[in-house]
């Protein structure tokens, strides 16, 4: 490069750097068209989703839906038959993509001949990221293992090993944390701790991919949910999108045909005796219920009770899975 060219080249490089810096940050996880077959079993069939930076995404689904396989494919532990993975803006096949990724496996086991302090030191060294000993001890304190830091893991209970696993996932300054069933061996207190830790991560802008059977946990902490069923994404969206449908329970008497028609005009109605369950439209802005009550009263209906009800994530999940099963049995016929 000649001296005359140098400023121009530097300017071009700076312009390119500015352009890249101006781009929106790449997602923490991006995967597209993931497929995996074990022998004759298609474990994962066309899974695509993403986890934004600082976002908490729950992965839900029945046993054998392919959740753990998808997680292992993201982390390069299981080979991808087809599809692409990007972690923190780097291709998943490049080990460096995992430099800022913390992982708590479903099968959490750590070297039984080491102490928690030594396990964390090992993981910090392997991650290649500078973390002081004091920070490592803070991670142990966060999961409640500060007073067992020097003991061999051989004598640890499953719950304590899972707590250590959480510390391992958090120790090397992660920007993405993948937690596969993080509370499976924990008591209610431990579960509450994990929930607090996940919410703290969210505050710090760390993205979390959480696979859990405890739907209540997912509902409390997650921004978005991806529901897997038989290796495919059965539904995904924010909690508001998935649970947008609200319900109304009405206890009514003297219901005429006109009144039933008025109810049906608002949404789908299920009747059990004198209790009517009405699905409210997702685009309701608070006027549907008072309008309905006013009209029912005008039609001579005696209104005993009006109770709003929200569909839980569990009900929604079961609904989605049952719809899928019904569609499959319909196809089979």
């Amino acid at each position: 490069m000649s001296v005359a060219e140098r400023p121009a080249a530097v300017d071009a490089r700076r312009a390119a750097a500015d352009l890249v810096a101006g781009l929106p940050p790449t997602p923490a996880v991006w995967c597209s068209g993931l497929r995996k077959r074990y022998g004759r079993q298609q474990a994962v069939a066309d899974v695509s989703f993403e986890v934004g930076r600082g976002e908490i995404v729950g992965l839900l689904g029945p046993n054998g839906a392919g959740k753990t396989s998808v997680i292992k494919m993201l982390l390069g532990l299981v080979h991808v038959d087809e599809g692409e993975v990007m972690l923190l803006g780097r291709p998943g096949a490049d080990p460096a993509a995992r430099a800022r990724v913390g992982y708590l496996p479903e099968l959490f086991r750590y070297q039984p001949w080491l102490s928690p302090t030594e396990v964390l030191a090992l993981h910090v060294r392997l991650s290649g990221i500078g973390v002081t000993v004091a920070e490592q001890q803070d991670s142990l304190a966060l999961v409640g293992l500060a007073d067992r830091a020097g003991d061999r893991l051989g004598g640890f209970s499953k719950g304590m090993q899972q707590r250590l696993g959480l510390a391992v996932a958090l120790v090397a300054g992660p920007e993405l944390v993948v937690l596969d069933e993080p509370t499976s061996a924990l008591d209610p207190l431990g579960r509450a701790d994990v929930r607090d830790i996940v919410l703290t991560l969210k505050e710090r802008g760390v993205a979390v991919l959480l696979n859990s059977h405890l739907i209540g946990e997912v509902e409390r902490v997650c921004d978005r949910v991806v529901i897997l069923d038989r290796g495919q994404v059965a539904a995904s969206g924010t909690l508001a999108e998935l649970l947008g449908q609200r319900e109304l329970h009405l206890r009514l008497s003297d219901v005429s045909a006109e009144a039933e028609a008025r109810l049906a005009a608002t949404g789908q109605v299920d009747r059990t005796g004198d209790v009517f369950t009405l699905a409210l439209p997702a685009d309701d802005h608070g006027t549907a219920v008072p309008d309905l009550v006013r009209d029912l009263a005008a039609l001579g209906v005696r209104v005993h009770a009006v109770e709003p009800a929200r569909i839980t994530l569990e009900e929604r999940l079961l609904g989605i899975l049952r719809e899928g099963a019904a569609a499959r049995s319909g196809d089979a016929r």
Partner: protein
Amino acid sequence: MTTTRTVLTIAALTLREATRRRVLMALTVLTVALIALSGWGFSRLAAESGGSALTSGEARLTASIVLNLVMFGFSLIAALGTAFLAGPTVSGETESGIVLAVLARPIRRSAYLMGKWLGLAAFGSGFVVLAGLVQCLVVRATTDYWPPQPVTALALLAAQTTVLLTLAVLLSTAISPMASGVVAVGLFCTTWVAGVVGGVGEGLGNEAVGRVGTVSRVLLPTDGLWQGAMHAFQDPSVFATFGGEDVEAFPFLSSSPLTATYLAWAALWVAMVWGLAATSFVRKDL
């Protein structure tokens, strides 16, 4: 994380595992027992030859044979130790799930396997070299016999251990921890027996039987390297005592040193088997 740093970290971890899992303790106890027993034997031998029951040539011959016998004991201990350590450390960690959190770090699987292999090789080789050296010193103190090429002999013992543990690492990437140890030690013993059978065949001038040893030494170089180590431990005057072919027929004497070609083949064998192990491990779904 650089590959070298990963390899050294995992190698250090493997060495720490060997010490913490009491493998080192068990090996030390066995070794001390063997050295003490052989020390007593050699002192008896010296007393016999001192009392002119044996000629000095016979005494040196006997010392060579017994030294080779004890060294075979060490190589067997090292073989058992490393083969049964390689199983749990690679296959066992895969089965238990210990490997999941480790390999989710920004490291290559081949670097992880190289670290394991290097740690095991350092442990196994370190053991045979140290135990072998102590044994040579005990023999020197009791019978005043010093092997002609101790460095070569100990290096070949270390190479033999490395060959066997490379095989154990390959097996442990494919089969269960216990099975990989059993198969590796079984093959080690089979090759040794095949070597003895081949030696007897050569001693009797039977080419077909003699070929059994040659073929087995090519397929698994442990026995070939062992023959080389024995040759470097034993007194050259044994050839004057026995004829060359009679030496072949005796399981704890060796008639010829190793060729450079054979050493190159052993090195290539280790590289190929390690390559196979790495391929198998990299392709594995964990």
